[in-house]
């Protein structure tokens, strides 16, 4: 196995035992990016110089005989919606084409302290809105399993970078499924932590009551280690919470015998591809064989979660993205006659079609006369969805569903119909609506039109109980080998 294909755990072992240096590990990743990213287009920018320099300083630490942390010297890819001081951060938008971040996001400063190496910034749907990464102003990312297909979205670049072994692990963000759905499409592991478990300071805000940062990795064990490295409350993010302080990776290997796993009847919708349903049912058999108790449950309000999402999300987008007006930073239109025209022209030139569509939708549902019928109603139904989960978690420890109703689709296949793309989120949005954590793992493959395509499922858990879903995912990966299959470009 080549160095760039290693997991965090394996790379850390190798660094500690001096089998290879951090510099060699980083170089291997950078060389592989050079070799395959022309086809995948996972990265929007590659920071080779600073990556090599950071790796070098980890090597000096090792040479001095100092202990290194688990994330030290690990080459990671960062979704281009997180700020790294002094580097270009575009959010996939033309609006921020030349924007240089003036500070580090909290997750970045935490990782910097630990000596993590940042390889570069990954592609995404503009401002993290989308399910295919086709909404990027810088062109789509291609799925490493079949380059004619999308990697999912919005964190498609990070998911593809892990699937193509263009990094050891990556960071993404998940507002309605943007970590879990691309993890499913690309056959990698992805964790959306509980709302508030990870600080969002330095994440370009999209929908503030839903956004959460989380890791992409090659295994559940890596995802747990990465999550432990970035979680915790932060005075800079007033919505971050004093989550449980124990390290999830420490209890990861505890058996799951007796764990109660719920399977909601609401996830077997007509639109669900039968091949995905079969894989998820097979996975439940595997979990049963490990001693888990699988039971049918009901989440009666979750069929409405998607509608709740597509009211609340655009409403918050319309408010958050009001700051992109060409005034203090970002793209400003030239030759405008007055202030009002400068705003509207700058926003026309800087923002893409999907972003503007959602701003219009959100402005409409928040407007006087419609607020009660849409936004207030959606908030009330959101509360009912939250109660559905609270009720279910009185009897089960976690819940399993597919990550998406369909396999990775072709680039361009659904882009003319926004509603079709929105339906991609049908299984993932409920977790954001309720604020609960979700862990996506590969659970099979399907042969379609000559392509070998990954299938994903997710474990949903109680608020701040990432420990249980990571433990379930870890046990599942010990019993299966879907996560060890490598894409042709890895």
């Amino acid at each position, binding site marked *: 196995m080549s160095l760039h294909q290693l997991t965090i755990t394996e790379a850390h072992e190798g660094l500690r035992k001096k089998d290879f240096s951090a510099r060699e590990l980083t170089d291997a990743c950078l060389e592989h990016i050079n070799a395959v990213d022309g086809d995948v287009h996972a990265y929007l920018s590659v920071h080779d110089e600073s990556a090599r320099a950071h790796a070098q300083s980890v090597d000096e630490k090792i040479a001095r005989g100092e202990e290194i942390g688990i994330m030290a010297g690990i080459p990671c890819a960062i979704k281009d919606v997180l700020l790294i001081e002094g580097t270009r951060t575009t959010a996939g938008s033309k609006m921020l084409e030349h924007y240089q971040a003036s500070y580090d996001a909290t997750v970045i400063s935490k990782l910097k302290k630990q000596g993590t190496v940042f390889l570069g910034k990954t592609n995404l749907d503009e401002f993290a809105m989308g399910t295919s990464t086709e909404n990027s102003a810088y062109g789509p990312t291609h799925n490493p399993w079949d380059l004619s297909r999308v990697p999912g979205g919005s964190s498609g670049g990070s998911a593809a970078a892990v699937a193509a072994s263009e990094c050891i692990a990556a960071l993404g963000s998940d507002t309605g499924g943007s970590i879990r759905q691309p993890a499913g499409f690309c056959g990698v592991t992805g964790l959306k932590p509980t709302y508030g478990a990870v600080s969002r300071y330095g994440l370009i805000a999209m929908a503030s009551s839903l956004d959460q940062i989380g890791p992409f990795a090659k295994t559940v064990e890596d995802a747990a280690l990465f999550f432990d490295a970035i979680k915790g409350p932060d005075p800079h993010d007033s919505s971050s919470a004093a989550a449980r302080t124990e390290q999830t990776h420490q209890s990861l290997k505890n058996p799951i015998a007796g764990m109660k796993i719920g399977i909601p009847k609401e996830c077997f919708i007509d639109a669900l591809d039968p091949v995905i349903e079969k894989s998820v049912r097979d996975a439940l058999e595997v979990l049963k064989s490990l001693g888990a108790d699988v039971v049918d449950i009901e989440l009666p309000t979750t069929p409405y979660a998607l509608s709740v999402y*597509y009211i609340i999300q655009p409403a918050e987008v319309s408010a958050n993205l*009001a700051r992109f007006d060409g*005034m203090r930073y970002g793209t*400003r239109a030239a030759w405008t006659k007055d202030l009002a025209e400068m705003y*509207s022209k700058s*926003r026309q030139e800087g923002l893409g079609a999907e972003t503007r569509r959602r701003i219009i939708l959100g402005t*409409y549902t928040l407007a006087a006369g419609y607020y009660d019928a849409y936004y207030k109603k959606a908030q009330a139904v959101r509360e009912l969805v939250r109660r559905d989960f609270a009720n279910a978690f009185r009897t089960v420890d976690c819940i399993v569903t597919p990550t998406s109703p369909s396999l990775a689709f072709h680039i361009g296949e659904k882009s003319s119909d926004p509603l079709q793309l929105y339906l991609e989120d049908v299984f993932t949005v409920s977790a954001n609506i309720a604020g609960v954590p979700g862990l996506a793992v590969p659970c099979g493959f399907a042969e379609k039109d000559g392509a070998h395509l990954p299938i994903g499922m997710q474990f949903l858990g109680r608020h701040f109980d990432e420990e249980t879903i990571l433990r379930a995912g870890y046990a599942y990966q010990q019993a299966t080998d879907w996560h060890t299959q490598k894409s042709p470009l890895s």
Partner: protein
Amino acid sequence: MALTKQDIEHIARLARLELSEEEKERFSSQLSSILDYVGQLSEVDTKGVEYHYHVEGLFNVMAPDEIGATGQTARDALLAAMPDRTGDLLKVKSVFQ
């Protein structure tokens, strides 16, 4: 719920967005079908349901009211990000004619 071109023009003005004629047509049909879809929420009985704006019920998170200093590096970076300026001053279009 059908959105007319006039509705779209009104909302676009509120959102400070300029749209082309073609976009106004396209958005009005696309947004109408999205609003039809989310209209299914009216089926849900929400009478008497109270809700919080934070899923965990977190509210009124306090921080000390202190002025933090901005370092020279951050100051330079913020100034450098301005699309148009004279010295350290941000240049904008006149507000009043």
